């Protein structure tokens, strides 16, 4: 035999104290007369005495107790304002209790299950897509390595025969001077200059592939950057004179020696000077400056060339990146020089950047940390 009264008391105690449902006793005027513990936790400890409009969200007609009771125990979705500020939607049922109405609001289990399984599915899909992304990325890296290896091998294997051609054309030019027609001498000179260009291109390709494959090794030695710049100016003076461009380098300060890779920095200086000369008009000046400030040595190569449009500056330091600006004497470029400069400088933990204005010229800046002891950060 079930003791119904004891059962009612037990259930009542459970609803009031422990049940995870909202229980509200509403007066006929809609004022909240009683709330269980869970309701007070969700809606606020001061929920009793409030009119139901302050608790139930209703964007159209105000809720009325008699109207809610008329639907009987049919569940209806209603949202309530909670202490957290986020509204909560519950499935509410309304029961007549004497002159009052009991509102019971439970979490919609179906909705919760839909939410749960939806979230789990979305999470799994995200995890699977991310895995696929990592996998494809790794495949791309492998492909890039294969490409670099191929480029390196091709450049290396091409270098020898082209070197041989360059040598032979040198011999022919020297030995046959005066014996061949002007046209034939011009052909031989042209052959020589083309092979020189190809050799430079192959050297650049070899440098880039070595850098891309992580094979760039710095041979750090204490060196005088001013001497390196002087040497670069001297080496490029022939080209500058041929184009009637003035190379101006007047060091103002003594910059102490610091650790760098002299051969690589010489390459940087040569690339920057070569670029400046390539894109400068005859009769202009290419100015080189070296300064030190707060532990950094900054080299600047400034030209009075055509300048580079701001929208194209991002292409400058990328491999094979070319802008719309062409060389003033038709010199060829494949766009590797500045990419190599950037890699070398970054390997030194330095920085390279450019200021440029169309019609006024460009200034390329290289900043290097003046490392005095190896192992310094």
């Amino acid at each position, binding site marked *: 035999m079930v003791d119904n009264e004891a059962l009612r008391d037990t259930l009542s105690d459970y609803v009031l104290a422990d049940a995870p449902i909202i229980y509200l006793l509403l007066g006929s005027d809609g004022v909240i007369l009683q709330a269980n513990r869970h309701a007070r936790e969700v809606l606020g400890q001061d929920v009793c005495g409030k009119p139901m409009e302050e608790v139930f969200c209703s964007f159209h007609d105000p809720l009325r107790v008699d109207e809610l009771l008329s639907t009987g125990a049919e569940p209806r979705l209603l949202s309530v304002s909670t202490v957290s500020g986020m509204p909560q939607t519950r499935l509410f049922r309304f029961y007549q209790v004497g002159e009052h109405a009991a509102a019971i609001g439970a979490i919609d289990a179906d909705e919760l299950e839909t939410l749960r399984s939806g979230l*789990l599915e979305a999470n*799994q899909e995200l*995890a*699977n897509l991310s*895995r696929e992304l990592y996998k494809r990325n*790794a495949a791309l*890296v*492998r492909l890039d390595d294969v490409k670099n290896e191929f480029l390196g091998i091709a450049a290396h294997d091409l270098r020898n025969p082209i070197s041989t051609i360059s040598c032979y054309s040198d011999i022919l030019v020297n030995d046959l001077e005066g014996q061949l027609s002007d046209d034939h001498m011009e052909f031989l000179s042209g052959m020589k200059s083309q092979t020189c260009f190809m050799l430079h291109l192959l050297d650049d390709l070899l440098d880039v592939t070595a850098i891309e494959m992580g094979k760039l090794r710095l041979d750090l030695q204490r060196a005088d950057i001013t001497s390196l710049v002087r040497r670069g100016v001297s080496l490029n003076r022939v080209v500058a004179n041929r184009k009637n461009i003035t190379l101006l380098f007047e060091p103002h300060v003594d910059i102490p020696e610091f650790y760098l890779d002299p051969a690589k920095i010489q390459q940087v200086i040569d690339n920057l000077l070569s670029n400046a000369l390539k894109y400068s008009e005859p009769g202009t000046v290419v100015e080189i400056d070296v300064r030190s400030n707060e532990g950094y040595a900054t080299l600047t190569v400034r030209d009075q060339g055509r300048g580079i449009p701001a929208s194209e500056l991002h292409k400058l330091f990328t491999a094979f990146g070319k802008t719309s600006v062409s060389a003033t004497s038709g010199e060829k470029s494949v766009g590797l020089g500045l990419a190599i400069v950037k890699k070398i400088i970054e390997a030194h933990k330095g920085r390279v950047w450019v200021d440029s204005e169309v019609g006024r010229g460009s200034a390329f800046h290289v900043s290097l940390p003046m490392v005095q002891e190896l192992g310094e950060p």
Partner: protein
Amino acid sequence: MHQSQTQITEELYREYFRALVAGNRLGCSDVTKRLLDANVDIRSLYVDLFQRSLYEIGSLWEQNKVSVATEHIATSITEGLLFLAYPILFSTPRCGLRAVVACVANEYHQVGAKMVADLLELRGWDTFFVGANTPVQDLLRTLDDKKPDVCGLSVSISFNLTRLLEVIEAIGRREARLNIIVGGQAFRHGGVECLREYPWVTCLPTLDALEDFAKGRE
């Protein structure tokens, strides 16, 4: 130069497990990153940390000591932590073998199958992880497209074993010679006897068994 590999100590495991039960994603990630920085063996990470902790949480759930929500969050955290191993996993040299790994239809527990795919990847296999709840037709299309040497199927719940047999037969009709490996918690208390009629199907109940199988194929 061979770098010595760190072991997963019991103390470290417990620290990880406490974070996992608490749903503390950052705590779990911290332990995992420390292990990876200390050059932990990836296989050991998967077996002795991820798998062991998920099995332990599963056992706690069976004893009603944690909720199913805790178990789901733990699975989600673990799946997220697999990413930390991916830079190593996907950069190993390829061995030329391919596998497609999937969970049968109505199977939503995918992390075990994913670990199988990942450990094969670590051995240089090219693996294609199809995911949870894979309809038969989708799986067959993937097999046609990827032409794997092996197809791996995961079943966690024993009443999905029937679906597994349907998938095996569907694959067999399309490609009689394709090796199939199966595994999952559904085989924990038997179930292998249902595979007797399919001699080309191998049940691999543990990740160790998977290693032996893979070595035999390489």
